């Protein structure tokens, strides 16, 4: 009996201890359930986030490959990409403008649904409130009890996204510099080197740098000045003073020096440029000089006679010699002379062409006006300077008198669809003005040095109406002539891309002249060199991506880089 009782006590004791242990274990598990849930929830949330990001990258890739991707699918299709099973869903109704995808990530089991509304081709906000020239991705992801997603706005990226960009120093010396943008997102000045600017306020007490972003109040940030090196304002280095903070406060823009993010300026070659013109015509290389050199003609007795001293001429020089002379000659009814020479070069007979009027075509597509001292390229023609082995492929328009203002004129004045173009493998040197709608494309240097600019003579030569884009495989230089200075209110305006593969230099009169303005609307690029703007009265740099896409050849198919604008969680 006693033995039986003792066994009973042992059992009870063991059971009591077991119950105690189970209670402790239960308490432990209960305590940790919350932690385990938190941990598991975190894992699922991470998977959902990663799936959302992956789905976005997939959609972006497809859109970059074909900018028309994302239109509603008319038939269902399934395919596999790495660890994703993708199913294109047929649109739900005829009026449905959204394309729909379902993506299953095989490794995690996350399911992602994407709705795409492609508004890239439209310049208006869509009825679904997708901004103009943009595409919207609505992504919803779920895994277990976790869900997430995002609404993402993307748009096509312009070839250049800066108002002014240089790989070396940017130096701007102007009474006031306006950094404007026609784009609601981008308004930035970038340098891979240093940026040197004047003091924050000019001598009149006005703010020297004014940022006017596109979209007006839509953009809470006026712009960005970014340098990989130093930014200095009137010698005050941003590293050693609070000048950049003060500049940010007063201009509303971001001023960032010692920037470390990497960005590359894409290279453009002549082959990448689409002049958007019609027929090509070949023009003789050399220097075309408007002058009043004394021309002589030989009569039938062999005697040389002078033309009137005020006879306007166009001399065409090649390899240091007069190649041809163009001039007006009034036919009096007798046989015209056959031999001509310039009085200053009596030993050289010149090939001459004379015309009954002062305005004539020296070749198909190229018209000369000796009265206005202009060479005009016909509308919708691409004048290509011949590149011959015996003559360098340079093109120059010049004069030997400061009273003469030569002009290179594109016949189309305002119609962009009929622009002209002048292309040279070598240098283009215009010692005069450029007028009209067109492109100057030089494989080497491009120089514009008008010897006199007066805004009061607008009706004669209004350079403010130039819609010119510039491309140079080397330097772009705009400066006063070697002899002489600019007059009052000179306005230098370019509309389009101003691209120098090396340096861009704008050098006005040494003494700052009122109205001595430089305006570039498009983008200003010095890919491997410097931007140097000196003594400008106003420097107006306006970023306009529409002018850039126009000049640069469209990529094959509908390819185009896409940039993300906004990410909004769902």
């Amino acid at each position: 009996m006693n033995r039986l009782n003792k066994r009973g006590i042992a059992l009870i004791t063991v059971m009591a201890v077991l119950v105690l242990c189970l209670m402790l274990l239960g308490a432990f598990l209960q305590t940790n359930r919350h932690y385990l849930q938190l941990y598991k929830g975190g894992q699922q949330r991470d998977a959902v986030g990663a799936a959302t990001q992956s789905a976005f990258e997939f959609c972006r890739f497809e859109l970059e490959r074909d900018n028309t991707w994302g239109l509603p699918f008319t038939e269902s299709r399934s395919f596999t990409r790495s660890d994703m099973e993708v199913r294109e869903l047929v649109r739900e109704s005829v009026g449905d403008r959204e394309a729909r995808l379902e993506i299953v990530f095989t490794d995690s089991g996350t399911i992602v649904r994407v709705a795409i509304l492609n508004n890239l081709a439209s310049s208006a906000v869509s009825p679904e409130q997708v901004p103009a020239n943009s595409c919207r991705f609505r992504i919803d992801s779920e895994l277990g009890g976790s869900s997430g997603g995002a609404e993402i706005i993307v748009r096509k990226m312009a070839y250049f996204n800066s108002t002014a960009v240089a790989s070396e120093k940017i130096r701007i010396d102007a009474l006031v510099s306006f950094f404007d943008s026609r784009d609601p997102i981008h308004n930035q000045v970038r340098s891979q080197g240093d940026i040197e600017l004047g003091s924050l306020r000019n001598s009149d007490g006005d703010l020297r740098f004014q940022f006017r972003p596109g979209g007006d109040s839509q953009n809470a940030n006026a712009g960005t000045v970014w340098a990989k090196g130093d930014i200095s304002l009137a010698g005050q280095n941003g590293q050693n003073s609070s000048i950049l903070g003060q500049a940010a406060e007063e201009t509303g823009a971001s001023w960032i020096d010692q920037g470390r993010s990497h960005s590359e300026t894409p290279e453009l070659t002549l082959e990448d440029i689409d002049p958007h013109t019609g027929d090509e015509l070949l023009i003789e290389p050399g220097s075309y000089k408007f002058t009043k050199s004394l021309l002589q003609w030989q009569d039938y007795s062999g005697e040389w006679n002078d033309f009137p001293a005020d006879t306007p001429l166009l001399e065409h020089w090649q390899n240091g010699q007069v190649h041809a002379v163009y001039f007006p000659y009034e036919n009096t009814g007798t046989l015209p002379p056959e031999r001509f020479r310039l009085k200053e070069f009596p030993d050289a007979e010149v090939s001459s062409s004379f015309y009954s009027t002062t305005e004539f075509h020296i070749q198909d597509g190229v018209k000369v006006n000796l009265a206005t001292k202009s060479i005009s390229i016909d509308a919708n023609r691409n004048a290509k300077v011949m590149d011959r082995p015996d003559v360098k492929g340079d093109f120059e328009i010049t004069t030997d008198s400061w009273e003469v203002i030569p002009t290179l004129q594109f016949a189309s004045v305002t119609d962009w669809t009929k622009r002209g173009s002048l292309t040279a493998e070598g240098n283009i040197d215009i010692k005069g003005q450029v007028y009209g709608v067109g492109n100057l494309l030089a494989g080497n240097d491009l120089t514009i040095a008008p010897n006199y600019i007066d805004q009061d003579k607008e009706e004669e030569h209004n350079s403010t109406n130039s819609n010119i884009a510039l491309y140079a495989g080397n330097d772009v230089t705009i400066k006063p002539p070697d002899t002489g200075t600019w007059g009052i209110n000179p306005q230098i305006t370019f509309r389009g891309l101003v691209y120098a593969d090396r340096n861009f230099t704008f050098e006005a009169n040494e003494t700052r002249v009122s109205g001595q303005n430089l305006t570039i609307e498009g983008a200003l690029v010095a890919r491997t060199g410097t931007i140097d703007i000196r003594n400008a009265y106003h420097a107006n740099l306006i970023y306009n991506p529409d002018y850039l896409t126009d000049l640069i050849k469209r990529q094959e198919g509908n390819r185009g880089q896409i940039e993300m604008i906004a990410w909004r969680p769902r």
Partner: protein
Amino acid sequence: MAQTKSYALLGKKLVRRAGFSIAELVVSMATLALVLIGVFVLFNFSARGFQLINTRQDVQNEVLKARQWLERDFTLTHLGSVGVKERTVSPDGITHSRDAVCLLSVSDWQQDSNFFSLTGLPRWNQYVVYYATRDEPSRLMRSVIVPENPPPPLKVRPFPRMMGGTDPENFPPAEVIQSQQVANNVLEFECRLDLAGQSLIQNLKVRRREGYSGMGNKKTDEVLEATFRWDPINTTPKI
């Protein structure tokens, strides 16, 4: 041992009754005491281990909670609005960082009116400031500030008031519309902008002092250090 027999008179019957001698009692009680001591020691060890695990999990929970808040705010902001104010304390002779960091945010990401219609960009309308308090034990606080001047939308730049020198613990109450504790027992909170990588790096160290190591009476600190790297995705245009 010879059993002591005793007899008792139970009514008219004589009944034999068994008992323990004092020696037996002492020995058995001593044995019981030894067993109980062993059980108690084992129990104490287990309890300490249990407490340590609990403490460790609490610390991990604090960090996980903080991470959720930090991730949500810093991945959705604009890098140009992130500003770091370095602050330090030295409670035990060792310097600890208790930085403050600000960023721009939107009050309601689901509301269409908080986004520009022409571009889809966020209309930044509030600042969020994270800071570790200087008292002990320190707390990681999240404050939402809507400045009165200038009114939203706010320019993309770090919160001027904080970068200008005002300590986050002294912000005008009228502008602080919300303030909450994100983590407790913060030992260190350090932030650093990585401009090369266009990201923000944060170091969060949480400490609790309630653990005992092993069998001794020495208190140990349970410390968890986490490093986060955030890439603000709404940095447009890319700087």
